[in-house]
């Protein structure tokens, strides 16, 4: 069977009208002024791409374009050539929708389980010396600017440190690399853990507490962050989320990618905070300290920072927040004994 085609010889831009047919494993192309025969094995027939004309690419750079897909399919059958699988998959909406559902499933699973798991594995493999260097960089940047030297007596500092070191830790927990005391009128009462295992305690939170147990509660929470390497994992997870978002949305606007990125990242943050609370609860219980001590200091911190949150309701701002709602945390800690 002869089918019409457009023929380009690859040496000039001239279009020739041609007729194609297939015979005995050879492709014959007939134009007004000449005829050529090519062995089918030397000919490249790319997979169809939507409704674009079907192509036949010849070894010397010449090509044929056939607009009629049905006629082309008949020619292919005569030649004994089978269509490509990928093109078949792309052609029907049924496969596209299946692919869409599978894709959404994979993405959701990666976000909820895959990425956190991978970040956890990588974070625990990184040698301590390397991450300690990050801590030092941070301290060098903020010491004497944001963080001032502590005004606590060395006896007091020693007392807190030794009680901390004496604490029995849950199985497999990593102890803090070092404990530093600072004062920061700007940050107020606070304590935090750096990625490399340094725990920083501020004078203001020591003053706020009524007894050492409360300080230990907060420190146990921070040690939870250190032991599980939360800061590092958050860094890894956030980078991947940001990267994927920028790749997908980025060519429209990299700013547009910011909102969904932040929304996704804060969920990871809240998971880590819950995890640190659980670690603190476990540590306190192991050392026969009531978990309500941590709840007490959290309440005091809330008042100190002047944040008034509606009790009981799930405020929509919580989804933007990096910490779970404080009364949710307090309830959880008081519920346990």
């Amino acid at each position, binding site marked *: 069977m002869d089918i019409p085609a457009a023929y380009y010889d690859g040496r000039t831009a001239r279009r020739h009208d041609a007729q194609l047919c297939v015979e005995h494993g050879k492709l014959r192309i007939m134009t007004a002024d000449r005829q050529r025969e090519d062995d089918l094995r030397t000919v490249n027939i790319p997979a169809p*791409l939507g409704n674009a004309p079907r192509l036949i690419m010849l070894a010397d750079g010449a090509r044929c374009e056939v607009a009629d897909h049905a006629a082309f399919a008949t020619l292919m059958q005569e030649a004994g050539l089978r269509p490509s699988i990928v093109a078949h998959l792309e052609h029907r909406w049924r496969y596209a929708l299946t692919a*869409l559902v599978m894709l959404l499933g994979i993405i959701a699973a990666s976000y909820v389980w895959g990425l956190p798991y991978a970040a956890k594995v990588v974070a625990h493999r990184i040698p301590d010396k390397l991450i300690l260097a990050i801590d030092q960089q941070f301290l060098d940047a903020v010491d004497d600017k944001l963080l001032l030297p502590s005004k606590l007596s060395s006896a007091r500092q020693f007392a807190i440190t030794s009680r901390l070191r004496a604490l029995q830790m849950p199985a497999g927990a990593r102890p803090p690399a070092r404990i530093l005391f600072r004062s920061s009128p700007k940050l107020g009462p606070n304590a935090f853990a750096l990625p490399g295992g340094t725990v920083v305690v501020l004078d203001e939170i020591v003053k706020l507490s009524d007894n050492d147990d409360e300080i230990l509660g907060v420190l146990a929470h921070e040690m939870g962050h250190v032991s599980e390497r939360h800061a590092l994992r958050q860094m890894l997870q956030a980078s991947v989320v940001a990267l994927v978002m920028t790749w997908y949305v980025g060519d429209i606007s990299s700013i547009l990618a910011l909102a969904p990125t932040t929304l996704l990242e804060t969920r990871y943050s809240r998971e880590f905070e819950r995890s640190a609370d659980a670690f603190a609860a476990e540590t306190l219980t192991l050392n026969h300290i009531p978990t309500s001590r941590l709840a007490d200091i959290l309440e005091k911190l809330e008042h100190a920072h002047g944040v008034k949150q509606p009790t009981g309701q799930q405020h929509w701002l919580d989804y933007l927040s990096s910490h779970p709602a404080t009364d949710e945390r307090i309830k959880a800690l008081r519920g346990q004994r």
Partner: protein
Amino acid sequence: MLRQPFTFSGSGGEYFRIWIVNLLLSIITLGIYSAWAKVRRMQYFYRHTSVAGASFDYHGDPKAILKGRIIAFVLFALYSATSHFNPVIGVGIFALIMAVMPWLVVRSLRFRLHNSSYRGLRFSSVGKVGEGYLIFLLLPIAAYASLGLLWPLAHQQITRYIRNHSRYGNELFSFHTKAGAFYRPYLVVMFSMLIFVVGMVSVAVASSVKTSSAAMAPFVMGALLMFYLLMLLLVYPYITSRLQNLIWNNTTLGPHRFESALTARGLFWVMASNIVLVILTVGLFKPFADIRLLRYKLEHLALLPGADLEDFLAGQQVTATATGEEVAEMFDVDIAF
């Protein structure tokens, strides 16, 4: 001779099916299939673009693209890993990447052009690497150092370099403007952005004086962000349309000229509706959005033939093939222009 408009025969639905199946396959193969997906995507755009009764084609070899992507990924991973732990090494690697970048850009231009064809004749790039360093490294650095004042000049030189060194068959493209022509649209943009920024800053200052409650902060941030996005949405279509018109109206290919008639208003409506639909469909509309934008840009471009279009000859076909094979053996780095 008769004006020949460019036409695009692709459709959003058709492209979506191809895009989703390829995305799923790329993720399942951990990114390896993405090189084949890229070739299919380029072929979809090229083969559905036609002018004067014939369409374009893309011939990139997926294996070469895969090699380029692996190298780019390794460089990027190396850079982000080291810059976290040791900023000095990070800066060193960044400098290395900058030193190699112009060479990669020139390579990538050659690969991209050599693998593009129209009516069976290939395009080619004859730019030299030495000049590439001036154009793609020194000029952008100068533009950056001059706080953006030299950027219109850099843009004009980059466009000139790319076009004057591009060839179809045996004919060179040519691009003639004075740098001043580029300054006009950029100055309008810089002036409008200045007004917007002043407006945003005064809003920010006014709101921080009035409210001290922490609950208002996200609202103010959100409002500022929306304001910034709105500004981008107004400015971007303006400058894109003016520059694309300027560039194409001053490009010639032998006796043939081009005509680009984009309007800022038209582009704005396409982009704004795209963003709204992408947000409403949580990102699923993006492939449709890409096709819509491409169709709009293409259908406002036309070829004004100055002589018989069929008279192009294959330019130095033998040399092109040899260089082509050498280039195809090397890698292609994904640099979007």
